């Protein structure tokens, strides 16, 4: 099986089969990470460039290690300013990278849709490592991988996602992916931070954390950006934690064996009480390992794409 597109731009529009295929491949890759010899020849002779217009520690490191574990040549470009402020357009930057023989460009960008624009203008495969508030598909894939690993399946599970859904590319990618995989997605957050008409996408939206969490198999808390307070999106951290913070009392509403997830970095005492972050049900640290596996799988599948096509 091959991925339909040359790029991984988002989970919206991806089929369940494709997602399943990526997760299956990631499972194989996880053996590599946990083995003694973290080196495979899968990406030998391939060139991977990460192009980050936003700061990132874990996602970038995760992609870089994924490339290295599979013997790719990799390089990094980071720019704290947008392409426009820098004076070169994204398309021009992309073409330059493309012409150096790059097979995969991994891009993070503050504008939604930037990876889509890049993908249209380069021959290389483009992986979206987070675009504005649109999608962060590799994060959602690693979340789904983690859930599937623990629960055996995604189908029929209730996944509660709590917090600032509006600005969250993690929430969007998870919502699209999980709905496609047959999970029930229950969202809760301050009404000012729920995207308009979100319920038309097949998810359920609740105004209390209780309704979202009750009988949930997975509870995912999103990072709350403190500066949203200044834009009058919520009154205070104190009030946020009172109504949407995840503590032990609230967690009791979820299933006994519910998983606690967070895309990191965690604001302890804001999205999660400290006790919850360190709770045995928390899989936050395993998410990090799985992130490398998922990114290895994607790099492998996208660079193999051409080979398979030629064989067909």
């Amino acid at each position, binding site marked *: 099986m091959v991925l339909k597109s040359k790029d991984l731009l988002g989970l919206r529009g991806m089929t369940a089969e494709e997602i399943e295929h990526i997760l299956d491949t990631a499972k194989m890759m996880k053996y590599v990470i946990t083995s003694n010899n973290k080196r495979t020849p899968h990406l030998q002779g391939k060139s991977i460039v990460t192009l980050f217009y936003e700061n990132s520690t874990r996602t970038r490191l995760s992609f870089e290690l994924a490339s290295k574990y599979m013997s790719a040549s990799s390089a990094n470009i980071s720019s704290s300013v*947008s392409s426009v402020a820098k004076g070169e357009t994204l398309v021009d930057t992309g073409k330059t990278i493309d012409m150096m023989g790059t097979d995969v460009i991994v891009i993070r960008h503050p504008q*939604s849709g930037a990876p889509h624009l890049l993908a249209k203008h380069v021959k290389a495969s483009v992986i979206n490592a987070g675009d*504005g508030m649109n999608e962060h598909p590799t994060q959602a894939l690693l979340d789904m991988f983690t859930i599937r690993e623990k629960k055996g399946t995604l189908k029929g599970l209730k996944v509660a996602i709590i917090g600032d859904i509006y600005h969250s590319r993690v929430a969007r990618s998870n919502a699209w992916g999980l709905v496609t995989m047959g999970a029930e997605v229950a969202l809760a957050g301050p009404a000012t931070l729920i995207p308009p008409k979100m319920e*038309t996408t097949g998810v359920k939206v609740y105004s209390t954390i209780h309704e979202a969490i009750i009988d949930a198999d997975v509870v995912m808390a999103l990072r709350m950006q403190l500066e949203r307070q200044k834009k009058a999106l919520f009154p205070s951290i104190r009030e946020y934690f009172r109504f949407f913070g995840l503590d032990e009392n609230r967690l009791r509403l979820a299933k006994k064996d519910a998983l606690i997830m967070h895309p990191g970095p965690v604001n302890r005492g804001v999205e999660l009480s400290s006790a919850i972050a360190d709770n045995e049900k928390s899989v936050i640290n395993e998410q990090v390992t799985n992130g490398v596996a998922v990114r290895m799988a994607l790099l492998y599948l996208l660079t193999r794409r051409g080979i398979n096509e030629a064989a067909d």
Partner: protein
Amino acid sequence: MKLLIKNGHIIDAKTGIDGVFDLIAEDGKIVEISGDIDAEGCEIVDAEGKYVLPGLVDAHCHLRDPGFEYKEDIESGTRSAAKGGFTSVACMPNTNPVIDSESVVKYILNKAKQEGYVNVYPIGAITKGLKGEELAEIGELKFAGAVAVSDDGKPVKSSSLMKKAMQYASMFDITVISHCEDTDLVEEGVMNEGCMSTALGLKGIPAAAEEAMVARELLLSEYLDIPIHIAHVSTALSVELIRNAKKRGARVTCETCPHYFSLTEEACMGYDTNAKVNPPLRTARDVQAVIEGIADDTIDIIATDHAPHHIDEKRVEFSLAANGMVGFETALPLAVTKLVRPGIITMRKLVEKMSLNPAKLLGINKGTLDPGSAADITIVDIDAKFTVRPELFESKSKNSPFGGMELYGLVWGTIVDGRPVVSENILL
């Protein structure tokens, strides 16, 4: 020069003519319309099977000249207008310098006289530099030749300033055209707020941002009993607010643009920046309401809001892309395809909304084929089908979301002051 147009279906919304006749024009004026004219020494245009209409008048376009000639200039813009069947266009003042002084008005009028393919009427600014702070010299603008005033592209944020602008402009009998947008509500929005903005992860512009200011303008207009014209109406509730105000007898007129009755927010799918426009493309429900507004005459005018942009301003991230789309060369075909052919409006109504009413709004002596009036004529074949190819547009800019679409309503001929500018769909 004498021109004889034979056997066309002539429609004139003003005089009520609606049937197959011959038309003769001489020295730039309409001379006669009647059954069967034979005349010697005439250039003859055979319009059999086609409609012969008073030249279309566009109440809202951007010619980008002076200041942004890399997007469009008066020459290229009027070529594009002629190709689209427009014989008169009113251009908005967001140029550089802004049309807020006599000298800029004169510059445009002079350049149009020298290089223009169609008549050009500048619209002056409401406020100096479009800054929304102080009134522009509206009297001077009017006497220099401006046909209306507008801060188009920007709303007049201050309600009291808008009130004063309406009072002041009414003294000179010049209409205020309002671009309705509550920028506080827009925040950083780049497309309509709703399902699509959620799906694309883009910040949304609520419909209420337009409606709130439409409501304000209606209240001011009714309070002052001074006319107001609402530009580019795009939402269902805006249409409803205006409909109700008209029922109360308010002196309000309004326009919409072809994209608001032809496209929904779904055109933004795939981050297509050619579909980025302000006000943004709305939902199917809004499109339906705009169509109903056109049908019941709540909406008086179909204007293009022709907004050329260079490819470098569109081949960027969606949030960073410029707002607007070119419209001259697709407006009439879209109106024919989406409104006339499905039976929503008659050709006569189309003539009202694309020729007579805009001429009335601007107070220009156009929009009719009455003998003695200027021989500005548009000939259209509403049965001819063609594929929109933006790369072939006369406009310098190609930012159209309609590329590849099959439309009816080929502009067969455009005649300005009795002189053919477009013939057999070819610009002369």
